[in-house]
């Protein structure tokens, strides 16, 4: 059967964009995650929040700020670029843009709390864990994500989740944060398969 030409297309054009979380929702999620981190970890003296480039960096900062507000503890923050640890070299055709990693603390023996915006296949997190392991032997690695959209391809789960959002594979989830966007918001976009 020939699919309808308009199947999957809504409104004008080929794309439908929908807001899933607004600024307030994001604030609430960040706040809750901060509290959960405090609750789960008896001590935060030896913990480090590491944001995965590029979506996780701002989130890590926000969570750290929230924890400081609540608990008065100033967590160490780092950033991690996982380009060199990806498993899709040779599959991806476009040239990678490598961003910087900035982890000043000693990793060995630390509680490493990885922060990313969206958890999807789990491959980025695998890469991030490998990257961390190459820096030292952390005591524990925990994972924070703002959105868990499902479709895992590896046995990986997050310790702290802002919101679980079931998605289909032809949807795209974008987390926009005011730090480098107009304003906070999480959006889901329907991708026209033919337009990819």
């Amino acid at each position, binding site marked *: 059967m020939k699919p309808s030409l308009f199947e999957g297309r809504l409104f004008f054009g080929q794309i439908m964009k929908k807001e899933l979380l607004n600024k307030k929702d994001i604030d609430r999620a960040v706040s809750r995650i901060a509290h959960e981190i405090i609750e789960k970890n008896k001590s935060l003296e030896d913990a480090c929040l590491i944001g995965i480039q590029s979506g996780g960096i701002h989130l890590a900062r926000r969570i750290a700020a929230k924890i400081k507000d609540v608990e008065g503890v100033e967590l160490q923050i780092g950033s991690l670029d996982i380009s060199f640890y990806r498993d899709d070299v040779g599959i991806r055709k476009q040239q*990678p843009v490598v961003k910087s990693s900035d982890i000043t603390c000693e990793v060995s023996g630390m509680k490493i709390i990885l922060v990313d915006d969206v958890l999807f296949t789990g491959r980025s997190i695998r890469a991030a864990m490998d990257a961390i392991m190459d820096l030292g032997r952390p005591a524990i690695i925990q994972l924070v994500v703002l959105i868990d959209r499902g479709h895992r391809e590896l046995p990986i789960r997050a310790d702290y989740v802002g919101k679980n959002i079931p998605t289909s594979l032809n949807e795209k989830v974008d987390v926009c944060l005011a730090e480098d966007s107009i304003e906070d918001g999480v959006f889901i976009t329907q991708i026209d398969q033919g337009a990819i």
Partner: protein
Amino acid sequence: MKDLVSIKDINREQIELILSTAASFKVVLQRDIKKVPALRGKTVVNLFFEPSTRTKTSFELAEKRLSTDVLNFSVPTSSVVKGETLLDTVRTIESYGVDYIVIRHSSSGVPHFISKNTHASVVNAGDGTNEHPTQALLDAFSILDKKETLEGLKIAIVGDVCHSRVAKSNIYLFSNFASEVRLVGPPTLVPEFKGYNVQYFNKIEDGIQGADVVMMLRIQSERMTKGFFPSTLEYASLWGLNSARLKLAKKDAIVMHPGPMNRGVEITSEVADSDQSIILEQVTNGLAVRMAVIYLLGRDNEQ
């Protein structure tokens, strides 16, 4: 970018991408575990038709730190001596299923020839008296380590520009950044670069006056016997870099040399070992830059 055969083939944006990626690799190289799995499962062949210890070591280490499998294929002379054509050699190597070919050859143009005849990504590790693109990139990287920008820098390149693939790749690279390139040496060793914005100086004193960077080139005694200059003694006295001459350059000028140095000929030990010399840092940076080049090749630019 499939290959890196010539600096002339890449633009400023691509140069900057390589340099910024190299910066990330430099961070990796400062860790305890200096290796990343970036190119696991990929194969690199180092095809060296010309003896080379430094460049080959640098490439080999860079390749290993990217987790590639490294094949070394050293042929002391042209394959034609064995009755095999260069094309045969390339095809034989390609049959191993290699992803990258790093090529060093005493004949100019061989990397161009190979890149036309293989699907693998080709990296020019020095061809004849033509180019040495990764050396130019590591020189640029090393300069940027010390100076804010390449823009408008006064860079004096002193010595045998005529036979120096390093000098040529550097001239092409700096032309992307509007640096002020000055070529210094006797007319027998300094050719004309009509299409490029360079200045010519016969006297080293004039050439390095107020320079930000003084790049010394290796002088080969072989050139002496062919009549390009009379003796190493005369060369040292007229074009060698010593402390007194270096004072003519800017106070914070840096001194570079692609190595290996002829101490006492083109450069005095006093200068080579001074604080202004970044010669050893060039070697370290070479690793990061070569990692970046290999890592970035074989993929498209468009995002």
